[in-house]
């Protein structure tokens, strides 16, 4: 039988799930909306960013929330030379692990440095939030990190 005679149907599956973020990630996201960067103290005193409800190594509850940043250090990065429509920036940028000042873990986000020659591991960067009116309490409230001193 030719293929064209075999019946074929599309099967679209979609549902609008929701998520409850809980008290710790909730505080972090609320902080972003307010233009603040928050971490949480782990069981050995190290500061975890983004914060978790539990120390990822010991499983113990994490402690107090602390302010971190707004500056930090690029730990590693990969250059995106041709951004796609769903990327956070329309111009070429880096995906980078940024360890914020006061934090012991790195956060994944975009760095808007202008070009790959303007970025190196170990460089200092600082946060660029979206305008307050556009912030909703989500990771995208951080538009990108930029070289400290605006060197780009």
């Amino acid at each position, binding site marked *: 039988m030719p293929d064209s005679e075999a019946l074929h149907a599309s099967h679209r599956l979609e549902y609008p799930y929701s998520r*409850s973020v809980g008290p710790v990630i909730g505080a972090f996201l609320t902080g972003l909306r307010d233009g603040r960067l928050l971490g949480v103290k782990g069981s050995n005193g190290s500061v975890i960013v983004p914060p978790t409800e*539990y120390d990822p190594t*010991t499983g113990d509850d994490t402690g107090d929330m602390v302010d971190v940043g707004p500056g930090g250090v690029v730990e590693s990065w990969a250059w995106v030379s041709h951004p796609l429509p769903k990327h956070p920036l329309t111009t070429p940028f880096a995906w980078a692990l940024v360890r914020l000042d006061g934090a012991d873990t790195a956060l994944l986000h975009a760095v808007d440095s202008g070009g790959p020659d303007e970025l190196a591991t170990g460089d200092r960067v600082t946060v660029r939030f979206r305008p307050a009116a556009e912030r909703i309490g989500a990771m995208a409230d951080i538009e990108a990190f930029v070289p400290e001193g605006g060197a780009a």
Partner: protein
Amino acid sequence: MAERCAVIGVGQTHHKSKRNDVSIAGLVREAAKMALADADLTWTDIDAVVIGKAPDMFEGNMMPELYLAPALGAVGKPMFRVHTAGSVGGSTALVAAHLISSGIHKRVLTVAYEKQSDSDAMWALSVPQPFAAPLLAGAGGYFAPHIRAYMRRSGAPEYIGRMVAVKDRRNAMRNPYAHLHIADIDMKMVEESMMLWDPLRYLEACPSSDGAAAMVLSAEDAVSGHFPPAWVHGMAMRSEPTMFAGRDQVNPRAGRDCSADVYAQAGITDPRRQIDVAEVYVPFSWYEPMWLENLGFCDLGDGWKLTESGATAFDGDIPWNTSGGVLSSNPIGASGMLRFLEVAMQVRGQAGEHQIEGARVALGQAYGGGSQFFSMWVVGSDKP
């Protein structure tokens, strides 16, 4: 079984429609930390973690056990996921118990959960498939015709289902963790509630709950905790396909075989006389008389007569669902484990207001899918 296995810690969340105050990780930790505290242990004392939940499509969270490992203190330890639809909470506890009875581990944490408010199980269970007639019926719509078949076979009067609905909700009033607390529940209120799937009315169906359950299981030489252990006397699982010619969905063979196995291990020849209390998965009222027969508490056709006589009531001779049962709390993935956990609490004497005095031998049962997955254990206050 080679090594004796004991329940030394139990924990559960307050079950509610929406636990917006916690994340999924926070929900499972709430139950797990309570179980650890009951066992007087910490995360570091645990050798392995076994976690269960119902289908991933319920929350749209694929393989959640992977990201929940650090939330359950499982970094660097064996951890795995069990999945047997609605019976999963029971199967999960059994897999954990096997790790003890086989001598592989000394202390195992087992956890099960569902966060129904993040999703819609009714949708997830009713996804239309290409070329198939869309039922859009959910679980209740699937089970209703089998309930009608039971009523026709047994001659049970219509009000039996309502009696179960009232009994289990009254038991829930004794359980601070139960989702539904309907103080003025009575036969009239059930009868006047909306018909959902004939013959099941709204108040004859389980709620949708967020919740989690956890237990710490241990080997005999690792027993600890604030209450005496519940000893596992028997455990069994059985399953059968959803559809095959000659399948009896009212009295499934997998359930009969499963109970025969667990009774043989526990030395039970007369369940009604030898079992002091039972927690049985009754998400729709009529499954009490149906499972009374399937579990051999009476002859075929007589289940509804036991319910009618009050034998399964809190003050009856075989109290069923002292916690309020699935009819009062249904965090699906955890619902099976809550059955197993309640009977452990009963033989440990820690059930508080829903304690059956002198309970020494108890049966926990869970079922899932289209009445096709069964898991059971018998626990006792004495060593097997």
